[in-house]
């Protein structure tokens, strides 16, 4: 192999470590992520403020969540999925993220300290791996 500016033997350690994280994480996470989650849990400042069973949703609806500083997020719920449609935060990362529908997916709005996370519920939900450690 020619001696390249962009490759040195030690690079394999860095690339290998990241590939390992990717492959392991995907394999372990696939089992959990794969199952359609049903409960969307909305937390603000670390406190759970609302829990919605997405499989029980029949008509799409929207609601507004406001925190103590007057900052808001508008959340839209449809059968099986949930998203943030509007937010007062400057970066709008949560809005850009779009719909989530699978267990362990989450939408985070850091400026407003809001997290929407989907949990797997029902039979078998607790049989999976409950944590991944590297």
């Amino acid at each position, binding site marked *: 192999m020619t001696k390249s500016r962009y*490759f040195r033997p030690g690079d394999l350690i860095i690339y290998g470590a990241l590939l390992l994280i990717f492959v392991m*994480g995907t394999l372990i996470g696939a089992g959990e992520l794969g199952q359609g989650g049903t409960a969307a849990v909305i937390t603000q400042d670390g406190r759970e403020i609302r829990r919605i069973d997405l499989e029980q949703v029949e008509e799409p609806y929207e609601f507004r969540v406001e925190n103590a500083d007057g900052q808001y997020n508008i959340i839209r719920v449809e059968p099986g999925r949930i998203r943030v449609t509007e937010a007062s935060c400057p970066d709008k990362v949560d809005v850009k993220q779009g719909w989530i529908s699978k267990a*362990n997916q989450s939408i985070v709005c850091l400026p407003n300290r809001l997290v929407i996370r989907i949990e797997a519920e029902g039979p078998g939900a607790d049989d999976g791996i409950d944590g991944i450690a590297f």
Partner: protein
Amino acid sequence: MNTRRITWIGVLVSQALVLHTVERMLPIPQLAPGVKLGLANIITLVALNILPWSDAFLVMVLRSMLGALLGGGASGVLFSLAGGAFSFLAMSFLMRYRDVLFSIAAISVGGAFLHNVGQLLMASLIVETFNILVYFPILAASALVTGFFTGVISDLIINAIYHARLLPGAARRRGPQPN
């Protein structure tokens, strides 16, 4: 602090802010929190190569704080600093073995990953219920791609700076290796 140092720090910080702003204008879908091109990482790599450690650190702190204030307001500062500090420490350590053990592309990849890890750690401190481990695989994959890209660009810039003879004091640092 002499004029040359002040100038280099000022130029690099302002370039980082421009890259930061341009990156936010690009319509790239948000795959997961923390996934991004990381163009401003180019400036940290350049600073580490052409400035003394302490000045490069100053560039990183200034660009993280100003970049966060320009982008998202005060709440982003801690977040941005955490990412900046993680990647800076990792890259300045790896940089000691540049061209011996690691190429600049791999150093950049390592820095890109740790930048994301730093940001997510800070996020999980702020929002207690946020499980950051779920995002590790996608962050690792995106760091491999974006880090390599920014690493190669940094190398081209560093070479250009050396070839333009902008650094009379460059003797204190090893020059780039010939091809």
